[in-house]
């Protein structure tokens, strides 16, 4: 009897310990998720104050909404551009800054510093640089090149938004890669060197497999982050020109806060949730094929 009282007491203490985290997750993660799904089944105009059950209407509307299709495409371009550029640049920087050369610490700090700058401040500075008569075109004109009006052309606007975001966050991925690179045992490299492997061969067959868990982590984080981009779009392009940079989250924002259509916006956020979930699951499931080991 005494032991079961003790067990109950132990359990009570345990539940009390985890209660703050569980309650927090319930209130701020699970409840909002459930609420958004519930809202997405309604026609809800916040200005007119209407809230009526609409069943699957919002989801049916998605199927024939050209604006949504355009925003999915814009998100796709943005994510592909960002992920490829960000991960490859971060890896290159990490490999370069992993050398024992003078000044590497300064460069590491230099590339990492944008990560700690406020996102909006960073973006506003870039919006000035990217103006038709801004700093970037001023620099190009010194080289005799007439730069485009970056934020007003459909392709250049998308490229600009991607590059601004890459420079903002590449430092974080760089540090993660750097930490992984420093965990690659020197003796393995040396053994390969003795066997006659060149630098590229050693990178390809030793370094990359050994840091593959970090590559997995970084790619999941970057892909999820790329789908949630909002502030940069709002500040730099407002979704334009045309709808070329209206990515999914910006479209969602327009529906909710510009057009007061919260029901449809909720349905779009459910779609975004599903996309992120599926992408993450796919990466997780395929990790066995390309991730060397798990840490």
């Amino acid at each position, binding site marked *: 009897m005494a032991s079961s009282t003790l067990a109950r007491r132990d359990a009570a203490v345990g539940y009390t310990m985890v209660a703050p985290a569980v309650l927090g997750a319930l209130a701020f993660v699970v409840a909002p998720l459930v609420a958004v799904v519930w809202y997405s089944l309604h026609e809800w105009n916040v*200005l007119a*104050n209407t809230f009526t059950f609409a069943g699957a209407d919002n989801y049916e509307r998605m199927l024939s909404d050209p604006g949504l299709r355009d925003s999915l495409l814009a998100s796709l371009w943005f994510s592909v551009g960002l992920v490829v550029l960000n991960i490859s640049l971060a890896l290159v920087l990490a490999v370069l800054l992993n050398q024992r050369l003078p000044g590497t610490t300064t460069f590491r700090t230099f590339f990492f510093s944008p990560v700690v700058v406020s996102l909006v401040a960073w973006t506003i500075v870039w919006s000035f640089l990217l103006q038709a008569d801004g700093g970037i075109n001023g620099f190009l004109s010194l080289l005799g090149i007439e730069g485009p009006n*970056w934020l007003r052309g459909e392709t250049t606007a998308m490229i600009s938004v991607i590059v601004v975001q890459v420079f903002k966050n590449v430092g974080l991925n760089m540090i993660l890669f750097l930490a992984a690179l420093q965990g690659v045992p020197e003796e393995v490299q040396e053994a390969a060197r003795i066997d006659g492997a060149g630098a590229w061969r050693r990178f390809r067959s030793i370094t990359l497999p050994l840091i593959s868990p970090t590559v997995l982590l970084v790619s999941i984080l970057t892909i999820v982050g790329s789908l949630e981009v909002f502030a940069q779009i709002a500040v730099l392009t407002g979704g334009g020109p045309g709808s070329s940079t209206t990515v999914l989250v910006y479209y969602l924002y327009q529906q909710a806060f510009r*057009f007061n259509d919260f029901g449809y*916006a909720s349905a779009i956020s459910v779609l975004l949730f599903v996309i992120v979930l599926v992408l993450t699951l796919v990466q997780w499931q395929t990790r066995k094929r390309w991730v060397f080991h798990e840490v």
Partner: protein
Amino acid sequence: MTPLTRRTPARRRLVGVPLAAGGAALALVLTACSGGGDDVSGEPSTPSEPVELRMTVWTADETQLAQFQEIADAYVAENPDLVSGVTFETIPFEDYTTSLTTQLAGGNAPDLAWILESYAPEFVASGALVDVAPKLRETEGYEYDDLLDSSLALWEKDGGLYAYPFSNSPFALFVNTDQVAAAGQPNPADLVASGEWTYDQARDIAQAAAATSGKQGLVVRDFDYKIWENLSTVWDGWGAAPWSEDGTQCTFTDPEMVDALTWVHDATFVDKAMPGPGTTADFFAGDAAMTITQISRASALDDSFAWDVVPLPAGPADQQNVIGQAGIGVFAAGEHPDVAADFLAWFTNPENAETLAAYFPPPRESLLNAETLGAANPKLSETQLQAVVVDGIQGAVTKPSHQNFAKLQDTVRAQLDALWTADADVEGVLADTCAAIQPLLED
């Protein structure tokens, strides 16, 4: 989140449990609010303790805000049992309506808010605002009949008044006469006097001034290639309009509109008389020779350069005055609509309307004369006020508005982006614009 007072339970519905909804990216918040139809007439019932009122505005001008605060403080002193204070909360112009509806969505409705004329039909029809006509009519000394019917029209529905148009501000053209003279160009005021004040003249002066100063020529303020409705100040001179008067037919493809926007396009890309996309130029900081904006912006002028203000130039369809209206509405979802309406009646009574007339021409017939306006506004001469304000309100048209304006604004903005390149096909872009907005007009 505090539950809202439900004064007339039969007419209200609890539409959802207040819950922060994060989803993947945004918090969508639902709250209980009223369905409108509140009766705010009669003396407001005295609350258990004095309430704090909040009014959202888009001006950040310290002189104007100080003036509002002074009027509000006098109201607080007069009604200490009713209110403890009134706060004026500035929301930047560009995001004003979005931020306001976000507050509504978050269950944080202000008690009163400025409302832009473009969104007037949407707000008036929505039921979010209370009818203030009975309250204003019955307030002693308010002189409701002094209000101009033409000013009230946009804000009325079924005999009720859903916001008071406190500002009926004509658009005018401000001139940096230093820059114009430096370029050896004629003074616009002289051209007005001789009847030669046209958009083509304005463009030529702007082009020459910009070439001489290395700065910008003519800036349509706040247009910035986003708020396209501000271009109505120009296209009204061509007799153009974005949609038919009943709001059901797109008229972007009408010859008047094609001509007007071709003029704007060429003035920008061929003559370089107007700043191109992505170029910011603030007239009041001395960055441009001329700007089209509302008279209420005169407060931003200092003595750093010589300036003048003249009526809008004439286009091919003659000179057309344009006004921008701003209303003050009382939100049904606010916590104390009856107190807020009582404050509105104070804020806009004849005496305070005269004070506010310095920057916001009131909809009161008795106050719309150069003498009254001049007493309130030392920066402008009586001649300027007569020409620009008093005459400017006569026969003026208001900026475009529509019940579906938010969607139209975004859709037209996205379509017109194609127009703002040097080699744009104006007619083609406008045909695309009509194709895109026609379904929204019929919505």
